[in-house]
């Protein structure tokens, strides 16, 4: 198996997310043993944000890191386990609500592909960037 970041890179649909992880300086952390649960927005999800949104964040790594950390949970949690609780605390600190089990929805994003196993955690591929609040 590969790590979370290696898996994401091989998938070819997370170019923006991976660039953002580098810009925010989170690569080392995400390459660590973890384990982590990552809700990974596809490139189209970032492209769907109004112009300038991503650029402002990329220019400001601590702020970008905060938004990215909202997509990460501590521990490797598969879909089955995630839907058993109404919300989970993200590494950012704010809770991520699990809104629906079927179709599987995390906050206002739909999980396109759940439970992608990795060496140091699990990836759930989502169709929208999720934001705290």
């Amino acid at each position: 198996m590969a790590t979370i970041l290696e898996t994401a890179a091989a998938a070819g649909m997370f170019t923006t997310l991976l660039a953002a992880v580098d810009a925010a300086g989170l690569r080392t952390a995400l390459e660590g043993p973890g384990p982590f649960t990552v809700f990974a927005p596809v490139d189209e999800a970032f492209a769907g944000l109004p112009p300038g949104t991503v650029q402002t964040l990329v220019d400001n790594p601590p702020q970008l890191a905060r938004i990215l950390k909202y997509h990460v949970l501590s521990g490797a949690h598969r879909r089955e386990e995630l839907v058993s609780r109404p919300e989970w605390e993200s590494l950012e600190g704010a809770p991520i609500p699990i809104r629906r089990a079927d179709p599987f929805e995390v906050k206002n994003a739909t999980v396109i592909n759940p439970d992608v196993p990795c060496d140091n955690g699990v990836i759930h591929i989502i169709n929208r960037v999720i934001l705290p609040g």
Partner: protein
Amino acid sequence: MKPSTHRFADVIHRLEAGGSMLPDTPENLQQIIGIYKAYAVPMDFYWRDLLYIAEQVFLQPLPAFKYVISQAYLDRPNSYAGAQSKLPIWRGTEKAHPELLAFMERGETRPMPKILHHLWHDRVNMEFAEACMQAMFWHQGMGGRFNDYLESEAYRINADRAIKAYFQGNLVMLGLYKLFPDMFLEQVRQLSYYANLGLFWEVMAPVFFEMSDLYDEGKLTSVPQAMDFLVNGIFAVAGRPIYHHVFIRGECFEIIPKGEGFTWLYEAALPYVEAVFYRTSPFRGTKSYNAQADQVPADQAEFHYGILYADVYPVGSAGIPPTLLMQDMLHFLPPYLQAMYRTHKRGEEDQLIQLGITFQRSMYNVTSAVIQALRCALLYPLDDTDPEHLLANRQFFEAQMDRFLRPEARLADIQTSDYR
């Protein structure tokens, strides 16, 4: 989905169709754009002076000249205007707006030294900006993590370093600090809110200038377009850092470092809207309230003295914050708004009231932009096909409209053109 049965169902359906709380009419568009322009010019002074006070005046015990801003801060490049900007929202100048500089030179009277303009009170009313800052400072706890950080040990250590550096060699002030450390710390917390609001308004001034220019060019033709421009602006700068740096004898003290990760949207914009548009506090000299008879809510979250609830007529009295703003905007009204006010009510005699009500309309549009931005960030697209998603959007809009059910709210009034 069935139609909403909410009292403001018409407004909710309009929001669901991508509209604003303010009806889309050519006159509404003209009013709000005109007042955005008139608001942006003094705002260009507010943000500069707020940062000047937070970063330079700092703990000056007798800050008599805090409104006499330095040339460096008048020239300070706006991060969102001009060719130097990485994200130029307004194509105009990054330095202080020319109309602002002309007004500072001449005032309502005639050209004279700054200090005389200041003493004659012929100047931009910074007291309004400070009242907004105080509303944010006083209400606190309106989302975001700014306030928690102000209470943290890290903040105390950073503030302590700055306080000791600022009063270096001043035994009286250092002695007072030793005796009353929390008093000084509280002052620094307030100064952090000066920085917060300054950084917030630094964005809004170019946003409003650009909207005015687009309108003049015929490129902004409807109220929803004006709202969408604001929604896009909110997203574009959402991740801007909110911080507080102080410059003491040339050295920068990071009281709130950018590295804390505080953002424009969460730590400034949303608390600002809550504190200033919705809550604020009763203004002195407008009306008497009996708190013991529950005329003032016990819960701060229930405060409803902001522009969205204001009865503009009594707040048109001298010296209170909204009137100070009205007076500031009066100096920079575009000619088309002046002409409009002359043809209604008492013409020039009650321009301040008329522009106050225009301002209220315009802030309902800004609030609509905030509501739509939150819907976009936290919920679902308006054209989503999943009925549960549409229901979640409906419930969100209805919950927002619930805040305008109280009798003081002006949402019903702004639906008609005869409210002036």
